[in-house]
């Protein structure tokens, strides 16, 4: 939102910024299914993609949309889908597939409240743990978040970059407030945007192993149709890509799927800190709630309460180190969120009982206004 960056200034909704970010990242395939409050992402891309020679398709259901983007990604296209809570649940099996088969793609979830159909038109942050553990099985997960239209634009690009770099589905969690808030977005020149493309194999097709074990832990999958014929499966497989029941191969695979994210945590995780150096009360807030928290840090400082903010831009992998560092400095941590403590739980774990962690969970479909958080902090003090 700072005005000093070069670029073109436009007013847009978070959902539109997401579509613009996808295009800037090189996304040329979108498959989706209508669901409030994410539908504007699909609507915008249905207009933009064919103009760029890209492909848009509204599929028959959420599972189909997720399957279609995996299929498209295997041809080398950067692919995306967008949904909201119930649709995210329906996609989980195929998100797990993309994790297992190591197919890069981006899933945007404009969160609304649940369980079930819950609150279609109202904001919530209730899918934070679903993003981590929604699909069955064990693997590393990358999930980003954003609090404004500008950040949504930037984080959508980053989601594609991380997907391509680590060959994995990447989730972007925004909420109804961010998705539907119209505000300034500074669109940088294309030359100023860092774009990552997945690696291409450099060996002959005869020697090619799609899931070759390397120190990097990230496979190199050749796009279908480029002369490298291999098999992709959701079953446990070995380096060849064919299914296996070999205990060693299976153990290696599942461990690698977790390790390939864990070992790069420091590169992936990004946090924003506000007045944390001398803070006595630490606030941990993400997504649209981080905006409330920013306002509250300033309001409390005016009152003489030393509050600081730790705002993660990446929810998974969880920024445990930053939370632990904060826990060593402050007297208490407050976690305001639009759920009943999904991240507060992680914060408690990461702070290793150094300080009390106070939850402020609002689940009535309304944002947390600054006054409510200020009162909570006064109570904690």
């Amino acid at each position: 939102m700072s005005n000093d960056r070069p670029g073109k200034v436009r007013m847009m909704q978070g959902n539109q910024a997401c579509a613009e970010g996808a295009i800037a990242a090189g996304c040329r395939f979108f498959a989706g299914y209508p669901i409030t409050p994410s539908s504007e992402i699909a609507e915008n891309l249905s207009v933009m993609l064919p103009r760029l020679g890209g492909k848009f398709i509204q599929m028959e259901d959420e599972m189909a949309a997720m399957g279609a983007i995996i299929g498209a990604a295997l041809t080398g296209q950067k692919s995306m889908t967008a949904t909201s809570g119930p649709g995210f649940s329906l996609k989980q099996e195929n998100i797990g597939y993309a994790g297992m088969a190591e197919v890069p793609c981006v899933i945007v979830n404009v969160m609304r409240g649940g369980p079930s159909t819950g609150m279609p038109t109202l904001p919530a942050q209730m899918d934070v743990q679903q993003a981590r553990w929604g699909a069955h099985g064990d693997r590393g997960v990358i999930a980003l978040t954003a609090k404004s239209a500008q950040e949504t634009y930037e984080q959508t690009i980053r989601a594609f970059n991380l997907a391509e770099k680590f060959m994995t589905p990447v989730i972007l969690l925004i909420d109804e407030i961010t998705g539907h808030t119209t505000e300034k977005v500074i669109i940088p020149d294309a030359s100023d945007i860092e774009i990552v493309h997945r690696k291409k194999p450099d060996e002959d097709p005869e020697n090619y192993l799609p899931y070759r074990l390397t120190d990097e832990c990230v496979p190199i999958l050749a796009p279908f149709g480029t002369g490298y014929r291999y098999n992709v499966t959701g079953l446990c497989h070995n380096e060849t890509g064919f299914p296996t029941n070999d205990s060693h191969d299976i153990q290696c695979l599942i461990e690698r799927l977790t390790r390939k994210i864990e070992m790069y945590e420091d590169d992936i995780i990004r946090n924003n800190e506000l007045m944390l150096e001398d803070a006595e009360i630490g606030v941990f807030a993400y997504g649209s709630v981080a905006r409330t928290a920013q306002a509250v840090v300033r309001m409390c400082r005016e009152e003489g309460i030393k509050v600081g903010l730790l705002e993660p831009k990446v929810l998974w992998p969880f920024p445990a180190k930053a939370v632990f560092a904060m826990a060593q400095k402050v007297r208490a941590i407050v976690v305001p969120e639009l759920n009943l403590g999904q991240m507060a739980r992680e914060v408690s774990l990461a702070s290793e009982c150094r300080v009390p962690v106070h939850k402020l969970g609002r689940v009535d479909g309304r944002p947390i206004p600054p006054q409510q958080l200020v009162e909570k902090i006064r109570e904690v003090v």
Partner: protein
Amino acid sequence: MDRYDVRLSGSGGQGLILAGKILAEAAAIYDGRNAVQTQSYGPEARGGASKAEVVIKDGEIDYPKAMDLDLLLSLTQESCTKYSGDLKEDGIMIVDSEIVKYPPEGSFKLYAAPITSIAANKIGKIVVTNIVALGILSKIAGVVTEESMRKAILARVPKGTEEINMKAFDEGWKTGEELLAE
């Protein structure tokens, strides 16, 4: 400038979300400040109480929803009753005089004009009610320049409707002047 919080309320289908976007763009793009526009809506595409909110500020806007309202526009009785609680004591309330028969009492300044009728009768198109309202509120609030409002409207309205929308804005602006003079 400190935050200026505006809420445009009425019923779904009156074009208040578009009006909110226009107001925000006038402030942010053409006046070069910051503005955020948010909305709150129910499952109905038409009818029901609906609101669009705009926060205007020179610096970064953290909390994006309107808090203490500087200005409330209400085009229906239901929305006026439901959404007027956050209006500041010295705030501004603009209502459709023919529809909002029972505005709440308070120390705020109340301006009432037959906004819907102006659109329907003087302009001849009820769909421009939102633009008439924008004309009135931008004159009364004085928070966005007239020139920027005109540019923002022209950039947003469908091609071929520029003239009628400008006419609606002029009429609203004039009504605003009259209300201020009273």
